[in-house]
């Protein structure tokens, strides 16, 4: 029965050890997949390398499918899983800013740690930049609070919002992802290879 720690099956004092181990694998997988190279990642926007799309979608689908099978099998209590609350405005605004940051910097927070760990100086600068960004947010939080709290939908689920069942939504997601992978492979053949 899971999740193990919220249900006290594993003692919460193990929490940080587990965090460390999961982080270890997280870093290993990201780095091994090539998420430690900003130019490799930025390739998704210019069509010369679709690694971000492939890894990201495969991961989301694998865990979503696994999670819903676990739920069906009664192995996991979904009500104890943390679900990021939906605040429409702030998520869109934040997403747009992050999108710009992604194109400019070529990293996202997790991958910047990865790249910094193997010695990429730009990734280290990026990480420092993130600290500054968070600090700016902290300082201007009172001004942003209204936008930050706008349109709260709570733990909204995407399939509820679309009015279909989770199963059908997953099927659609899988088909879209497979289609995207296929299109990506076609595009990649056409685009001039970039050496990095």
């Amino acid at each position, binding site marked *: 029965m899971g999740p193990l720690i919220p249900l006290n099956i594993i003692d919460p004092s193990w929490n940080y050890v587990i965090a460390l181990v999961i982080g270890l694998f997280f870093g290993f997988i990201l780095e091994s997949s090539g998420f430690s190279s900003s130019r490799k990642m930025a390739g998704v926007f210019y069509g010369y390398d679709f690694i971000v799309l492939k890894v990201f979608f495969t991961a989301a689908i694998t865990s979503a499918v696994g999670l819903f*099978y*676990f739920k069906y*099998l009664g192995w996991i209590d979904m*009500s*104890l*899983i*943390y679900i*990021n609350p939906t605040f429409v405005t702030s998520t869109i605004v934040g997403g747009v800013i992050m999108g710009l940051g992604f194109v400019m910097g070529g990293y996202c*927070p997790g991958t910047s740690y990865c790249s910094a760990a193997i010695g990429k100086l730009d990734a280290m600068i990026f990480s420092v930049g993130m600290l500054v960004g968070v600090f700016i947010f902290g300082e201007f939080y009172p001004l942003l609070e209204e936008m930050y709290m706008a349109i709260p939908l709570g733990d909204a689920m995407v399939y509820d919002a679309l009015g279909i069942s989770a199963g059908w939504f997953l099927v659609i997601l899988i088909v879209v992802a497979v289609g995207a992978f296929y299109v990506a492979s076609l595009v990649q053949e056409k685009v001039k290879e970039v050496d990095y």
Partner: protein
Amino acid sequence: MKEQDKTKSLSVAALIFVAIIVVGLLTTGKPDIAYKITPQQSIEALGKPGNEISPLEVAKTVKANDNKFIIIDLRSPYEFVKGNIPGSINIPANRILEKESLDFFEKNATSNSTLVLYDATQSLATGPWLVLKQLGYDNIKMMQGGWKIYSGIDSQDPSQNPAWLVEIPKYDFAALSASKETNANKGNQAGQKEIIVPQRKVKAKKVEGGC
């Protein structure tokens, strides 16, 4: 890309993933005992008359010895031997879903007979009765009052409400509680309640996650 040609480890990982799910599906199969009616149907069935039978009627048929009912005693065997309704069968409440018991219910489900459940009190019988009802056994009734009332049925005062109608209020609760209104100490009126019904769950136990 060259790395895309390396599919062996991917296939192995996918195979393991699928295998876990398949094994899970095979091991957590459907339960042996399944509900035959939905919760909504159970609620509707509870609203209909004919779920209960008065101990007087049971006593009558027992006296007449006409075997109209198959009477089942849900108490423990120890209590059962100390005294029971003549002709009753002992199936302790915690054993009604064992195979022999279910076979017994199954056998009698198709017959025209009526099964009557009783326990020490009706409260104790109502849960097991409702479980069986939800398993689709429709010819089962619970006896009002239970053994405690049945065993003293002869001393029933006909001018009073029958003692087995336990769900009838015995007191005027409002009047009993109302005397406080003359006092300064307030706080127990029906109208005073405050009800806040949240629409979404507030998950208290959940971990704080995300970024």
